[in-house]
């Protein structure tokens, strides 16, 4: 009997263990965010790798140094297989739809030469930055040649200008923006007819005061050998639904590697967080190589230093970090491009010639949804989700701020103060404090006023009582 029951217990325990969900430790990387103080704090993982595909598995032969990836509005994956000079189009189930190897350019057969950038418009037009051929190529959805746009021609461009387009985007109005190799004047802008219209959004020149000092004391010959103070080139670009252009710069020193350019080329990226969107806060800083704007002002930047994808909201607050360099599923060797579509995220690995798909976890989708509600001003709905987020991650500061703001709007000032303090939002804490103070004084005015009058009266009486005998004493002294 005892043996029987113990076997039963054992079986049920084994069953329970088997039914339990896989522990989070099975993920190939750790989830973390940065606290207000710049400390990395653990956080649940927002996206987990679900599957990966390489050229062989797609049936197209191995991809050779793929340079760019694009997910169209319908969810089709466009892979730019740079080494083989072709475009591979996959559908949602990762079946190969089309392979664009070349195209008919007028009479002759033409093909790409080491292209690095790819963009697909909503209408399905494919734009390729055909780097070594020094031109942009526009194809329609089936891969038929439409036109090519050569090097920009204008008086402002010097004779020694080397045109190697690396990345390309097209905004809603059909304007084309190109990132050129070694072009530090900014983005090269073409109008919809392919006419060069100018440069936009130059990075600021960065220099070291120490370098400036040495430059000022050195001779002309020495100076010529020194590094010139020139602005850094952009290395990647994306466009959001409102037509704002997001750019990245590989520079481990700058505090603005991500820029959001308005149509006049001015950086309008909102950074209300204490820590600007710079990736990791370690000594060896992150170097962003690609950026992906997903809507609601949320953008993801891909870091090559540690192979991580940092997701920021429109305020420049870090939402979550995923990925890592490594050799497991979900880690990368040399990540080149990041894209997202609905609840999935795709990272292209240049060296492995592979795309990894990440799907959102419960935590990730709650954060995404809460952030969407939050940024559209629906604080009360967002607060409900933020509370769920806090159940999974009590370190998540944005959730505290979100709940705090909602409570502030509901008039729960005292509670709002607690939450805003936990979320380290001094501005809104101060607002809540001001409101709470007014409310508190309105309720307790009579007590404080009575107390004050009592203290004043009491003080006056005491002073009178203390002073009188002293006067008397002095009189007595004088008499004696």
């Amino acid at each position, binding site marked *: 009997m005892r043996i029987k029951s113990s076997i039963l217990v054992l079986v049920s325990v084994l069953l329970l263990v088997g039914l339990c969900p896989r522990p989070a430790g099975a993920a190939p990387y750790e989830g973390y965010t940065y606290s207000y*103080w710049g400390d990395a704090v653990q956080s649940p993982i927002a996206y987990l790798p679900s599957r990966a595909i390489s050229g062989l598995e797609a049936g197209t032969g191995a991809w050779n140094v793929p340079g760019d990836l694009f997910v169209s509005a319908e969810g089709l994956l466009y892979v730019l297989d740079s080494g083989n000079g072709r475009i591979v189009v996959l559908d949602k189930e990762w079946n190969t739809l089309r392979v664009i190897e070349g195209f008919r350019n007028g009479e002759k057969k033409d093909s790409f030469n080491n292209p690095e950038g790819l963009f697909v418009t909503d209408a399905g037009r494919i734009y390729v930055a055909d780097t070594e051929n020094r031109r942009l190529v526009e194809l329609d959805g089936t891969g038929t040649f439409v036109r090519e746009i050569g090097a920009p021609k204008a008086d402002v461009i010097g004779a020694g200008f080397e045109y190697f387009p690396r990345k390309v985007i097209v905004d809603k109005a059909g304007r084309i923006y190109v990132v050129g190799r070694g072009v530090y004047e900014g983005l090269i802008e073409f109008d919809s007819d392919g006419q060069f219209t100018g440069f936009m959004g130059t990075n600021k020149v960065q220099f070291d005061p120490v370098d400036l000092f040495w430059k000022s004391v050195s001779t002309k010959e020495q100076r010529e050998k020194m590094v010139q103070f020139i602005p850094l080139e952009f290395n990647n670009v994306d466009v959001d639904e409102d037509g704002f252009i997001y750019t990245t710069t590989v520079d481990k020193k700058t505090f603005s590697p991500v820029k959001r350019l308005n149509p006049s080329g001015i950086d309008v990226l909102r950074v209300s967080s204490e820590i600007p969107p710079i990736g990791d806060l370690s000594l060896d800083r992150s170097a962003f190589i690609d950026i992906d704007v997903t809507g609601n002002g949320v953008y993801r930047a891909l870091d090559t230093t540690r192979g991580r994808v940092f997701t920021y909201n429109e305020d420049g607050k870090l939402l979550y970090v995923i990925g890592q360099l490594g050799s497991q599923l979900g880690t990368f060797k040399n990540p080149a491009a990041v894209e997202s579509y609905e609840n999935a995220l795709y990272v292209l690995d240049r060296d492995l010639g592979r795309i990894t798909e990440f799907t959102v976890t419960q935590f990730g989708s709650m954060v995404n949804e809460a952030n969407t509600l939050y940024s559209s001003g629906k604080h009360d709905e967002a607060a409900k989700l933020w509370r769920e987020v806090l159940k999974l991650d009590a370190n998540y500061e944005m959730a505290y701020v979100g709940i705090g703001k909602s409570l502030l709007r509901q008039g729960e000032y005292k509670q709002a103060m607690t939450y805003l*303090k936990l979320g380290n939002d*001094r*501005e809104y*804490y*101060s*607002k809540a*404090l*001001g409101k709470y*103070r007014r409310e508190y004084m309105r309720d307790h005015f009579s007590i404080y006023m009575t107390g004050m009058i009592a203290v004043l009266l009491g003080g006056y009486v005491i002073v009178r009582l203390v002073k009188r005998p002293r006067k008397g004493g002095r009189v007595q002294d004088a008499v004696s």
Partner: protein
Amino acid sequence: MPFLKDIKYSLHVAVHPFDGFWDLKYENKGKLRMALGILIALTVTMIVKRQYVGYVVNYNHPLALNSINELKYIIFPFLLWCLANWSLTTLMDGEGKFAEIVITTGYALLPLILINIPNILLSNVITLREASFYHLLDALATLWFVWLLFIGTMTVHQYTVLKTITTMLLTLAVVAIIIFLGLLFFNLIQQIVSFVYTVYQELSIRG
């Protein structure tokens, strides 16, 4: 009560520095224990300030607070200042004795306590917009302290205004030199200790 009298006198010094410091030197009204008491009270005030100042003006990382640091940043500089001032003024015909310098500096610290305590209370009910009042009071406390220190140094050593200013600036330089020498000294000691230890290790392992 002598203690109450001491407190009353120290308050008198804070508001009437010329008169007060004169009495301190020539009427022996200043007490060393009172000066040290003020120093300790200031240290406590500073610790309380770090910890309990209102959230809107408190930018301290709660995990980085360490009361030992406050001792290091208040008592140590105080002693350094007194020592540097004394060493300097003996060479510059200052009339002050070491005890007098300690007492003067100690009494000059009083405004920091006087302003800081109400300021801490105030900071807990102000909003971000009113935070400038907090910073103003903070700055006033420092100015008042420097003013008292200036008058005190002038009175104790019987200097002219210009000479007092020079002395105070030179004192800061001397403080820097003392710190430098101290670091050098400890570094050398460390080298010697590690040398001796290495020799010992060598011998013990070979033996």
